[in-house]
């Protein structure tokens, strides 16, 4: 059975996305009392998630 095209690339890309989100959340959680720190992490998460919600897989794989 042949693997579907771009299976590995998509897997790798999403793994990196998930790791980036977790890094941002883990860094910010102890600093929720510091608006600038927590606010920046939340903005970073918004940006990352907005790209995922667009679902433009061909752009992700291309990069």
């Amino acid at each position: 059975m042949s693997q579907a095209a771009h299976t590995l690339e998509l897997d790798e890309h999403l793994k990196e996305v998930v790791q980036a989100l977790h890094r941002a959340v883990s860094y910010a959680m102890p600093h929720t009392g510091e608006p600038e720190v927590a606010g920046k992490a939340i903005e970073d998460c918004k940006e990352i998630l907005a790209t995922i919600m667009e679902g433009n897989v061909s752009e992700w794989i291309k990069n």
Partner: protein
Amino acid sequence: MFTDKVELKDFEKMDPEYQDLLKRVLTIQADCEIGGPHLYVDTMLPTAPTKVDQLVVARTAAEEIDHFRKIARIAGDIGTDVSFVLSTPNQKRYVEAFRGKITTWEDYAVFGMMIDRIGHYQLDEFVGCSYAPLERILPDIIKEEAGHIDFGTTKTAELAAKDEETKRKVQKVLDYWYVKALDMFGHSGSKRSERYRYWGLKRRTNAEARRQYMEEVKPIILGMGLELPDPNKGRLYM
């Protein structure tokens, strides 16, 4: 009943019905995993009540994306590309519960309590399943879904206890999601469900799983001082 364990190397030799059913269930599971974040990320990440809540929304979305990734990898390995669900409009989701938008914190909390719990039930169906690669990815996914359910349940309880107006809002969204949840188990007499069970891709009948879910959530809902919604009102799949 089929009781063998199937590895990736065995898949192409399997009965075409098995192949089709596995591809179908993986596609639907992938759609549901990414369907959740599509319901709430753009509305709730900016507006969740506290910074901690916002970060929990982001972490929950990250975990659902990771669940999608793992399911997509298994599907891709058997030649099924499920990446199209990443750009499916909400209204086109396989499961009716994901065809909408979550716009309030009450909605988000009850969704976690009720619908992530269905996710847990679905994943539980795969425990001990015949397709070994799917069985192997379950432990972390189930643990993370349990975290989503806990958060939703805790927040729902807090909201229900806050004041009468908030409790009314919680009851209203509960009435909505309770029926959506029961419908997610499908038709009680589903022939396809029986074929999933024959091939070891599902453990319980739709009716039995729904019954267990109703038994599980009843004391939780009543314990929060909320009313148990009418299980038949607005149902699509009995």
